[in-house]
């Protein structure tokens, strides 16, 4: 019996169809970073605890260090590089959570930031923006990722700020 050591996979990454031939053991995090050159996704622990490598698989947050690249075959992946949105005038604007991270000083070294941004963006996009965000929701959105710099206060603040921005947009 021969073992299939490599496979060619097709993944839609940030809206762009990509193809790569990867060893079957390659982690999705490594495939994104090293095969596809998207180094915005960071690897902090490689055992699924810190959340720095979080990407959206079919829109839902996953720890890309716990997913094999071949498992993502045929699916769509959104990384931090793909969080910006169309401004409906042909350009791109940052996701409100990205803007809020800057506005609220929610990052210092920035290494964990992509994981927070993808996780929180997915959470904010999935909720009814017209409803005021609760503290419980904020705790839930930020509660699964590690940050060693900020003490999280400003990350929570950024969550509230982004939800408020989205609420204002929804109200227009």
């Amino acid at each position, binding site marked *: 019996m021969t073992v299939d050591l490599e496979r060619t996979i097709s993944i839609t990454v940030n809206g762009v169809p990509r193809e790569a031939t990867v060893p079957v053991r390659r982690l999705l995090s490594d495939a994104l970073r090293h095969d596809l050159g998207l*180094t*915005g*996704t960071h690897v*902090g622990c490689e055992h699924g605890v810190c959340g720095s490598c979080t990407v959206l698989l079919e829109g839902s947050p996953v720890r890309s260090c716990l997913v094999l690249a071949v498992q993502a075959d045929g699916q769509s992946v959104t990384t931090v590089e793909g969080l910006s949105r169309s401004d409906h005038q042909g350009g791109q604007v940052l996701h409100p959570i990205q803007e809020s991270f800057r506005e609220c000083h929610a990052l210092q070294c920035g290494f964990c930031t992509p994981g927070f941004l993808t996780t929180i963006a997915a959470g904010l996009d999935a909720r009814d923006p017209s409803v005021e965000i609760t503290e419980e929701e904020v705790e839930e959105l*930020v509660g699964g990722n590690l940050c060693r710099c900020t*003490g999280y206060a*400003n990350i929570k603040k950024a969550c509230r700020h982004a939800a408020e921005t989205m609420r204002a947009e929804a109200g227009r």
Partner: protein
Amino acid sequence: MTTKLFGEPVRRREDARLITGQGRYLDDIGADAYAAAFVRSPYAHARVVDIDVTGALDVEGLLAIYTYEDLTGPLAEPLPVLIPHPQLTHPRTGYPLAKDVVQHVGEAVVMVVATDRYVAEDAAALIAVSYEELPVVVGVDAARAATHAVHDDVPDNVAARHHQETGDVEPALAASTHTISFTQYVERSASMPMEGKGVHARWDADDQALRVYTSTQASTSVRAAIAAKLQLSLEKVEVIAPDVGGGFGVKIVHPWPEELLVPMAARLLGHEVKWTEDRREHFISSAHERQQRQEITVGYDEDGRITALDVHIWHDNGAYTPYGIIIPIVTATQLVGPYAIPVYRVRVDSVFTNTVIVTPYRGAGRPQGCFAMERTMDRIAQERGLDRAEVRMRNLIQGDQFPYDQHLTFQDGRPVIYDSGDYPGLMAKLKALVDWDSFAERRAEATARGRMLGIGMAMYVEGTGPGPYEGGHVQVLGSGKVLVSTGLTSQGQGHETVFAQLVASELGVPMEDVEVTTGDTRRFGYAVGTFASRAAVMSGNAVALAARGVREKALRIAAEVLEASPEDLEIDEGLVQVKGVPGASIPLRTVAVLSNPLRYAFDEAAKQATQFAGPGDDSKPPVAVGDAPGLEHTDYYSPIRSTFASGAHAAVVEIDPSTWEIDVVQYAVVHDCGNVVNPMIVEGQVHGGVAQGVGGALYERMAYDSDGQLQNASFMDFLMPYASEVPPVVIDHQETASPLNPLGIKGAGEAGVIPGSAAIASAIEDAVGRRIATMPISPTELYDLVRSSADPVTNSQTGAMA
């Protein structure tokens, strides 16, 4: 002036790239690099008997295997002792790859280079190293007992005996009305930045030169180390710290073995080589800190005023002493905090253990010193029946006592002289912030809910900004762009923003025109590094001085052109103008062009400048003696001694007596770091420090077993705080300018972490009424403690006057 930026919460310029995934961290560099992986010792203390690589040789993609036998010249010698000290009588360092004996689990034995990391790890797993196990020493008490020796030729395991005293302590204690003696412990934790270490090296065979990227806090020193160890001339080595994903101390150590081995391999293989540390490697081969045993005797009078203090500390320095005895010195000298201690003696025995090396982690010995002093204050208050705040107040250095000489010698070899401060002011603000005097009501309310509530406080003084120097270079280009560089590195502190604020402010240019580069030896060759809360103080003042030099030159050149006196000129928004004479002006960028007499008209700026160029004086050289072409200036800031920041923290803990879960429900910080350049950034530093303080108090410890195996070497088991563990933090500021430096600033980076364990221990003790003598403390340990016969403790009611 629109360009006045000092003191403003300017949003960070680093963020644009970091929130879009465009940062450039170490592992983002070198997509085609070969990968290095290491075979590390699985034993804490063992003799390397044999290394058999045959199993690895057939691995497809393997490129090279290196052991100690492959190291040549200075590389085969022990790693340097960076900071020797006469009291460090038995310094020991390892080799880049283990020579005969390994001294801790995780010590590098073999380096493998392969086409990619997966393959390198495959090969590493197939290398068989046989060891002969040796007796293991773990923990400060085992080291002190010295039943076994870590290093054969250091039988008592003592690397250094550090000793300082300000008077004759024994008679002073004998003459004291009251004395208390006690012993307490602080456990190990670690910096644990989210990005581990990493090194990328590229050898240029044509230039015979090396470019190294490394996730370091000290790129200039890594450069010097590589040049020395690889026997290259300094100008053939460039070292760059790219975006660094946190440091907190661990990345100040240099050279790490990998910082030498990866460049060595790149040169030998003629190809880029990269090593990216994984998390387990970081736990078992990077540095830890904090473990100490503290024996304290204090003498005091009826009123709780300290008359003498005698402290004997055993400090676990791990297997080697590459960083000297900086932590023992810092603990010894910073222990006294904001208090006037008439007679003080401190002895720190720094001892070897078969564990990862101990080098500074944010706070660098200060949290332990603070723990010793502040717990002493609590003991005195309890024994005297005084409010804990009141005892502290009675011992504080008063405002009219500055500069205050503690008669100790600091880590920089300079005297510990507090330059400025207002410690009673800190205490008053803290008590107001945390509502100290009405705590009894809150406690009663919690008791009614079936919860135990306690409050604690701790104060500190932190020596920041030690020398010897940092430098800054500022250059105005003909485009109007202002280039700023300093050799000191950044790990997320926002230096690009803060230094741009300072230069824009000093020079009178829009901040958007300023570009800051840090930690790149191609741009600035002389630097010390980022540690000891020194970046803003040292490089901040250096770039400000460099900007002042540029301003002076710009005004001199502009004065000639505008036929005015330099004193009558001002620079605002990048325009040099005669004060009060609208239109009599020249853009700074044009002054930059004029500063260079060679002006090929490559661009519009040069063409425009010609209208200002005078006919020239044929009797003088185009560049005057002592002058130089270009609108640029380099300057250095070298302080006479460190500047001393200060602060006071209070914690309120709530304990559920059914689970003994400890919940920090309130955390208050009063903070004085002198003049604040960017309050948003300072507050962020405080937030982060407090989170690490809470982690160190309640969750983080390095769980070594008696064989020297680190049982919790993963983020699953080493419990760093998530958002759910960090309390809300309220902050009040006090700004007591430093008289020592031009900007009046003091360091802020480490402050937040220093009093955490002391304040939280005090609060837990207050809640449960049992002596807390070891930190961190878990719910299980607290449960065991309250059921034991340990000292019952009663605090006088907070706010009550004796």
